[in-house]
């Protein structure tokens, strides 16, 4: 049996320390995040963990004004799809950027957002 290279727990423990991890396929070189069991490009199962730079640009964004109950106290807040320099993308909160300054193409940098002991992906100014 092959143990997963990165589990969700490992990813978010690293994220809490400020590092974004991904995996690279030993078969075809495809990057994946979050890790998948099989490479969606070549079906190999030979992942190598890599560290991402944390640098990316906003591909799309929204500002949530009506939130789920568990986030109701936080509105308004911004969520963006961010394309990383390495090519993979993450969805994350945008923090420390005034809401009216957020635009598609804005360079951003990863930072962990820890709330109630749980870490989520967020991005701040590059």
């Amino acid at each position: 049996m092959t143990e997963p290279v990165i589990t969700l727990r490992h990813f978010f423990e690293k994220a809490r320390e400020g590092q974004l991890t991904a995996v690279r396929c030993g078969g075809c070189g495809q990057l994946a995040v979050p890790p998948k069991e099989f490479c969606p490009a070549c079906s190999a199962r030979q992942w190598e963990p890599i560290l991402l730079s944390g640098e990316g640009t906003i591909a799309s964004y929204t500002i949530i004004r009506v939130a789920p109950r568990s986030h109701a106290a936080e509105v308004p807040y911004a969520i963006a799809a961010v394309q990383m320099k390495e090519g993979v993308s993450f969805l994350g909160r945008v923090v420390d950027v005034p809401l009216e300054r957020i635009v598609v193409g804005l360079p951003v940098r990863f930072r962990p957002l820890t709330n109630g002991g749980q870490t989520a992906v967020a991005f701040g100014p590059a």
Partner: protein
Amino acid sequence: MRRVAVVGVGVTKFGKHDRTSAELFAEAAAEALTDAGLPAHKVQALYYGNVVGGETEKQLHTGPQAASVLGIPTVPTTRFETACASSHAAFRHAVMEVASGASDVVLVGGAERVLNVTTEESTEYFAYASDARWEQTLGLTFPGVFALVARAHMTKYGTTEEQMASVAVKNHRHGTLNPKAQFQKEITVEQVLKSAMVADPLKLYDCCPFTDGGAAVVLVSEELARQARRPIWVLASAAASDWMLIGDKRDLSRVPATERAAAAAYRQAGLGPGDVDVVELHDCFTIAEIVATEGLGLFEPGTGGLAAEKGWTSLGGKVPVNPSGGLKAKGHPIGATGAAQIAEIVTQLRGEAARRQVDGARVGLTHTLGGNTATVLVSLFGRD
């Protein structure tokens, strides 16, 4: 495989109800069986859609519950959950059961009850259809998902907020022609643009409402369909999926699952987008209708907004879309929506849609989307 036909349809009034989802389904199912001219005991299986029953009604095992409340407790029944596409997924599997010869009469449908909880609660429960660890922790909502799609579409193609508003205006206009629609009043582009922001750039009137309701359709084999009053044939029923996570999607201006499901459905039916006379599609948000009209091949990528603005998708236009009022005005009881769309297309192809009738409609299409654009069902229907 045998040909399969829809011979009965039923839909409750959409809106707020003080009955359980099982009761709402039973009302719709009774209407569908009466329409089909079949007694309840002829039903051999129930394929049932229900999504947040576990949360809003503290009710699981909703398939047998619905069958029991309807009064057919012994039929095999399965609850389908593919978020907002649940009863369309149920429909596809039911079609295969009849086509295979396993059953001759199958009841399909769904129901949902959500207006018994607050908007904050229902927003939370609907968000359970996004990824728990990666997306719910961010406070992502469904308006948020489609706001990301809208921003990407605006950036890539120049689609405008006015064009999105024109989808809402059109569907509200259609809704005034549907006595079962949740909203029966016209709105203006200005009202949409001035409505409260929900998830930039989507405003309140870009969003479909929360809705209670039920819908049902009766499927039969070709042999039984020949004895029916006005069978509507299932020409195709196809499903496609896509990455669950928003971060895994390469181009947020598109819904690849729609493109794949549509291609499969057109292939099954031997038809193309140009053959479709009337469409019921998944306009959970105004941008969703624009992107769906492109993904279904009705309009070129990037021109769905223009099509809405020019009235090409209105009743009387090139390809009428959502004559029922769509999710936007008819309402969106998520477990029932796919079956309700099918009921509308069957009604249209029978020529029984009264003031919202698409004249001479021969081929109809239904499109239902679930979750973060990760599930799409497309079916095609035709009349003799």
